[in-house]
């Protein structure tokens, strides 16, 4: 039944386009004529990172800078500044690399507790932890300078809920992963896809600040369904 | 330079002095003018209402009258647009007429476009001592893309103080037959335009399309009459400003 409907569906389209069958080949769209490639091509990487920071300031997204050696320290400081509470973080490679678990286990502050995403505990257990967390920490794979955006994939070790359910989202991103525009980030994602289509993350979200709305009388309110606060930690 | 003047039916019926101002400006710039007696209407009001078939009579009349002209200058931007861009669509199924329409379409110019881009003149030596704002009509500004010429001409009028208005390029609410088909909507649109003109501080509003100007004038006069605005604002075609000494 579905097949019949599908066939009819496509035949209507092909017919409207003046042909009987779906073409087997279409010449790719020539993107090279567009202006996007040339934009910001004269900027150094340092200038691109600066642009990211300026854009953060323009839209009021908090960012702090640090270096590889002080990542954990900076995260802890930011947790404190955001008022502590329950912190949820992933079990991804980056978390391992910065030994978040080991470091967080050492923290002894009243009111601050930590939960590491644990896929083997199953869906409900993880969501139950995330929904009561005050702070979620993630490690985006890319940043876009033009719009002060970070790009966060979801995968087994880093669930969607971590950067979504808590009140505050702390995203830790390397400045070397910041690109000028979506032109470059989309190219990078294309590469990821083409190398292993089956392995492409089921969810990739671009995050450009805390959730907001202007639905009531156009008054801007920060914090609707997503986090109310966002901090980008930029790692040099 | 020999030119045929397309006067526009509204100027013909309601504003002869505007037509004469156009004639005098162009004559001063060395043009040899003909105002064909058999011209009537470009047909756009029928076209804009979807009555293409009915419009053909007016269109063919215009083609017959102007097809042998060297240059055609229109005193109204929207008519120039209709003649330049719409005739060929409407006559698409009549190849012979389409060829004749092409001759007219290629030679039609809007008044300010002709002076600035064809004659290469930006200063016509006019003097006009007052505060003026300018309504940038949709057809001329957007659909024909003529943005600079009227501004350049205004800049060079001695004594003229140009005051910008909010949303100068916004529609005045005339829209051909829109104004009679949707008078309630047209009224609120024109009122907003009139208030933008009033709030610019100008004593005169000028433009290059007599249809918009007639619409705006009707509203400004009503607002003044009803005491809603406290000064009378004069509505003038740019040709009248260029014709002032």
């Amino acid at each position, binding site marked *: 039944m*579905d097949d019949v*409907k*599908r066939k009819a*569906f*496509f035949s209507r*389209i092909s*017919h*409207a*386009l003046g042909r009987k069958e779906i*073409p087997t080949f279409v010449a790719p*769209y020539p993107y090279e*004529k567009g202006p996007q490639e040339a934009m910001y091509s004269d900027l150094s990487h340092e200038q691109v990172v600066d642009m990211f920071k300026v854009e953060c300031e323009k839209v009021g997204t908090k960012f702090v800078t640090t270096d590889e050696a002080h990542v954990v320290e900076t995260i802890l400081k930011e947790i404190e500044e955001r008022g502590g509470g329950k912190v949820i973080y992933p079990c991804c490679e980056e978390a391992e690399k910065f030994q978040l678990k080991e470091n967080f286990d050492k923290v002894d502050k009243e009111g601050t507790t930590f939960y590491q*995403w644990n896929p083997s505990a199953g*869906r409900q*257990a993880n*969501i139950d932890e995330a929904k009561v967390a005050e702070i979620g920490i993630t490690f985006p794979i890319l940043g876009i300078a033009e719009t002060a955006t970070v790009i966060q994939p979801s*995968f087994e070790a880093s*669930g*969607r809920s971590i950067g979504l359910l808590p009140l505050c989202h702390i995203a830790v991103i390397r400045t070397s992963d910041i690109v000028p525009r*979506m*032109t470059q980030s989309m190219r990078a*994602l294309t590469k990821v*896809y083409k190398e292993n289509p089956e392995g*492409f993350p*089921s969810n990739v979200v*671009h*995050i*450009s600040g805390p*959730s907001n*709305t202007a*639905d*009531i*009388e*156009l008054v801007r*309110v920060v914090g*609707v*369904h*997503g986090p109310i606060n966002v901090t980008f930690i930029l790692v040099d | 330079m020999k030119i045929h003047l397309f006067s526009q039916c509204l*100027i*013909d*019926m309601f*504003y*002869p002095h505007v037509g004469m101002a156009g*004639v005098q400006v162009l004559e001063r710039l060395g043009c040899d003018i003909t105002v064909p007696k058999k*011209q009537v209407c470009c*047909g756009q009001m029928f076209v804009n209402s979807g*009555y293409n078939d009915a419009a053909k009579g007016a269109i063919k*009349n215009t083609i017959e009258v102007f097809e042998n002209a060297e240059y055609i200058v229109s005193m109204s931007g929207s008519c120039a647009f209709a003649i330049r861009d719409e005739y060929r669509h409407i006559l698409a199924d009549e190849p012979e007429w389409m060829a004749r329409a092409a001759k007219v379409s290629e030679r039609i110019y809007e008044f300010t476009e002709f002076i600035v881009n064809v004659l290469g003149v930006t200063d016509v030596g006019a003097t006009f001592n007052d505060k003026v704002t300018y309504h940038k009509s949709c057809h001329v500004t957007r*659909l024909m893309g003529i943005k600079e010429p009227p501004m350049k001409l205004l800049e060079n009028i001695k004594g003229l103080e140009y005051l910008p208005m909010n949303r100068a390029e916004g*529609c005045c609410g005339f*829209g051909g037959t*829109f104004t009679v088909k949707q*008078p*309630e*909507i047209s*009224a*609120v*649109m024109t009122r907003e335009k009139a208030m933008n003109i009033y709030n610019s501080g100008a004593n005169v509003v000028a433009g290059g399309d007599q249809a918009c100007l007639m619409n705006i*004038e*009707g509203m400004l006069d009503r607002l003044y009459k009803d005491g809603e605005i406290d000064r009378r604002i004069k509505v003038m075609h740019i040709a009248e400003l260029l014709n002032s000494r």
Partner: protein
Amino acid sequence: MAILYDERPFKKRVEDVLANDFKVKAIQKAQDVFYAKRKALVDQVPEWEDFREEAAELRDHVLSNLDYYLNQFAENATKAGAKVHFAHTAEEANEYVMEVVRAKNAKMVVKGKTMVSEEISLNEALMKEGVEVNETDLAEFILQTADWNPPSHIVVPALHFARGRIREMFHDKLGYEGTEDPEEMTRFVRKRIRDRFLRADIGFTGCNFAVAETGTITIVSNEGNGRMSSSMPKTMICLMGMERLVPDFAGLDIMMELLIRSSVGAKISNYFSMITGPAKPGEADGPEELHIIIIDNGRSNILGGEFNSMLRCIRCGACMNICPVYRHITGHAYGSIYPGPMGAVLTPLLVGYEKAGDLPYASTLCGECWEHCPVKIPLHELLLKHRVNIADKAHLRPAAEEAIFKTVATVFSNSFLFDYGTKLGAIGMKLMSKNGNMADWTKLLPVVGGWMKAKEMGTLKLKKFRDVYAEYEASKRK
């Protein structure tokens, strides 16, 4: 909500809106705010026109190869684990939805903002099935609370409610006890909807762009409703219009450059989700099942025809953010979920001229919509095409109007008739006027009466320009 939610005559709808000052002022404020924000951003992008050109071309490229790209999309989405359905009609789309609802024994669903769900009256279908529906976009939530009040704008659909009125509704229907402060009310909604997100059996979303090469669907949102609806419930249903494709990720770059700037005058939305298949095995959240319903609902009739360019539309709302007619009559005068210039073109294509033949006349053809459209749809030209179809081809305008136009057209095509006709008119006007002003009763006249209610009428001159010129020329010769 059906596409056409108010089937009263256009004039009647306009009358209602014009009498509602708050509604009109709210839309005007929105236009002014979006205009200023958009302009400031666009002025920073010298390449803007190049992007528009590229986006229009890209959309046309996709449309002229729609069968190819749609097929590619379906194959790749299926490979990624999604279940792809094709629905020719609204009814078919709803049938698919109900199959999923029954299979999952779903009792409660959440919905991110989706226009196409309005197009197919999904909410009504779900409620008929006994399912609790929760709109989660704040504005849609407000409209739902207001007993499914219709949207007045495509992007900010509840602007016609003042905060005090929203507070009152929240209080009466939801037991809200707080103030009318937008932030406080938003927090109230956050809390309420958060619970629904976590408990919902199915999450519905729309689809801003689908990517053929990867089988990815994408969702733009600022509030996070799209992100939540696509992340929390175990089952996700994505509804997409069949034309909403880009070839590949590079295409998203172009469309995203334009979409948000055109829509609300921001560079980017807070969230932009790319969803490729359901959650993978081992993932502890995200949808376990992803259904993508690709909807035709009249689009294949538009494809390849004289209105083909309308299918470029990316639903940004830029045309209604600038339209001077929409500015004064708001979305409600269109009576359609698709208002403004794009709605005036699209609605008649989807529901026919008999029902929506008035809409193409809700425009002065000023072209500002076209100038602001990020994909360069010549909306003013399409409106005119509709008028030709309605007036010239289908003869659906009132007979009296057609007769008047034809008569006037005859007079205006012959200088002899014109000269005598207008001379009679000038004499007539003189008789109708008192001290240079038109008599009051003329406001009741057909055709010109409407004008005279609001505006003064100029005087038809007995001596026309051509007469004056002839005298001038004769005097020169002397």
